[in-house]
């Protein structure tokens, strides 16, 4: 059994460095054959969205993400796992979340990343409030599709 490094879990206001995070995953454990990454960002559109404010529950967030990463490591035999989620106010186009996994073969890394982003969406205590150019503020509603995606891994 190869040694896998501890999952890397960060909740921060600062931008993350995608290249550095990928390099860390790819070099973190001997026997790594592939890494899989998902990065979510603030999606702009014709509706005049200007920014999102990400609120979270300090303490619980880190706990949930750490447990989620540990369960992915175990379930998909991962050799590495990184979860970084930003909080605060983020403009259209700004990166919000980085999910990354490393594994010996591609199937595990790909599945691990998919699992993590699906579960993180509905299981970690983050909430998004949208700010529009016309001054409106709208709390994002949870989507049934996200609940279904998360439940598909039960």
């Amino acid at each position, binding site marked *: 059994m190869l040694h896998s490094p501890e999952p890397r879990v960060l909740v921060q206001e600062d931008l993350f460095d995608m290249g550095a995070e990928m390099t860390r995953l790819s070099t973190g454990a001997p026997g790594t054959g592939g890494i899989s990454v998902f990065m*979510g960002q603030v999606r702009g559109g014709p509706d005049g969205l200007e920014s999102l404010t*990400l*609120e*979270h*529950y300090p*303490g*619980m967030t880190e*706990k949930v993400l750490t447990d989620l990463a540990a369960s992915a490591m175990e379930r998909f035999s991962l050799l590495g796992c990184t979860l970084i*989620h930003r909080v605060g106010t983020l403009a259209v186009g700004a990166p*919000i*979340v980085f999910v990354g996994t490393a594994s010996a073969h591609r199937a595990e890394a790909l599945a691990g990343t998919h699992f993590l*982003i699906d579960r*993180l*969406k*509905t*299981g*970690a*205590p*983050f*909430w*998004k*409030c949208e700010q529009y150019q016309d001054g409106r503020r709208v*709390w*994002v*509603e*949870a989507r049934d599709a996200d*609940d279904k995606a998360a439940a598909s891994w039960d």
Partner: protein
Amino acid sequence: MTQDVTIFYFAALREQMGREREAVSLPASPMTVDALIQGLRRQDSVMDEVFAASPRLRVAINQTLATFQDTVKPGDELAFFPPMTGG
């Protein structure tokens, strides 16, 4: 040991409640989240209205997701919030 529990509110619920945290005393122990909330709503019309209008509220006890049928103990940290929308 204090009989108090701390309650946090997050996101839209925090704004509707007009506060982000409060300490409340636990009238009995053990009791369910639901029983505690029913009692608080009888004393607080804002909370009663906000909770009535929020059928999908989630609860966490000591920073772990829980249900309204779970038990609250003195010293616990409770949190109420809308469905999560991270990622």
